[in-house]
């Protein structure tokens, strides 16, 4: 492992379809050149998808209290499975 990452799997439970992880996405979408924040981290997950995210502070916050939490341990527990890889 060269960079700490989080693996997210959409288990397709609870009738939840495509998920947009808005809270791990864009930070600087206004003006200027494209910065590092604009690529790689905004993710759509379809049922059955498995993705890997760089474990940035946004991703960790989402796991703790954001969208990733809601669909893994919160109101829609089990929809997403999350593990550090």
């Amino acid at each position, binding site marked *: *492992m*060269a*960079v*700490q*990452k989080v693996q997210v799997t959409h288990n397709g439970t609870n009738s939840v379809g495509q998920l947009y992880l808005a809270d791990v996405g864009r930070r600087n979408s206004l003006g200027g050149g494209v*910065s*590092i*924040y604009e*690529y*790689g*981290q905004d993710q759509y997950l379809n049922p059955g998808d498995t993705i890997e995210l*760089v*474990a*940035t*502070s*946004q991703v960790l916050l989402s796991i703790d209290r954001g969208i990733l939490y809601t669909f893994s341990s919160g109101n829609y527990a089990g929809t997403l499975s999350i593990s550090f890889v």
Partner: protein
Amino acid sequence: MRITNTTSKDITIHDIDRGNAGEQKGIHEFWNAKADSVVPANGYIDVLDSDRVMLSTELGHIKKGKDTTLLTTKYSITGREVGPFILDGTNNIFKVQIGTSAVQSFTLPTGTSVTMADIVSTITISATGFEVEESDRFFRTSFMENITDYSEIDGDLGKGYGQRGASVLSGFLVCFGDDIITIGDGNANATLGFTEGDFTKCK
């Protein structure tokens, strides 16, 4: 993370920090701005494993530099205190874990003026899977000033906290290597400026 330039020309990494004075950014990004985004020819820099550094390593300019072998990287973690230190039996144990191997414990020399060179020498004797050195390139811009006094201070317009002191350019303990480095529960952590459980996040 330690970034080494394998070429004979300086390489600027544009996506780990733009370094613009006054630009709003988190403290960690700010620290990297204070550090450097230029990797000197045939030299190296140590930077904090901030979000930007992680993303650049995975997706950005650092990745591109590695893919083209212009850059190589290692895990690194840097302490936040400089010597000489007062070390005795209560603060002379430094522990690290490399990857998932057994925790390594180092008994540092004691005294009222233990230098970083003394500490580096001691750890180097038995360090396995990583190396240590006294930092040279972590905080090195001319305007970097550390806070030396956190007490309340009266000013002309009110009270403030923190007083700036002389610039600190080098002298921190750097641990670096090819596997993840995790700081253990040694009682020297506070003295050397490490925190138990801190670990390297990218290389």
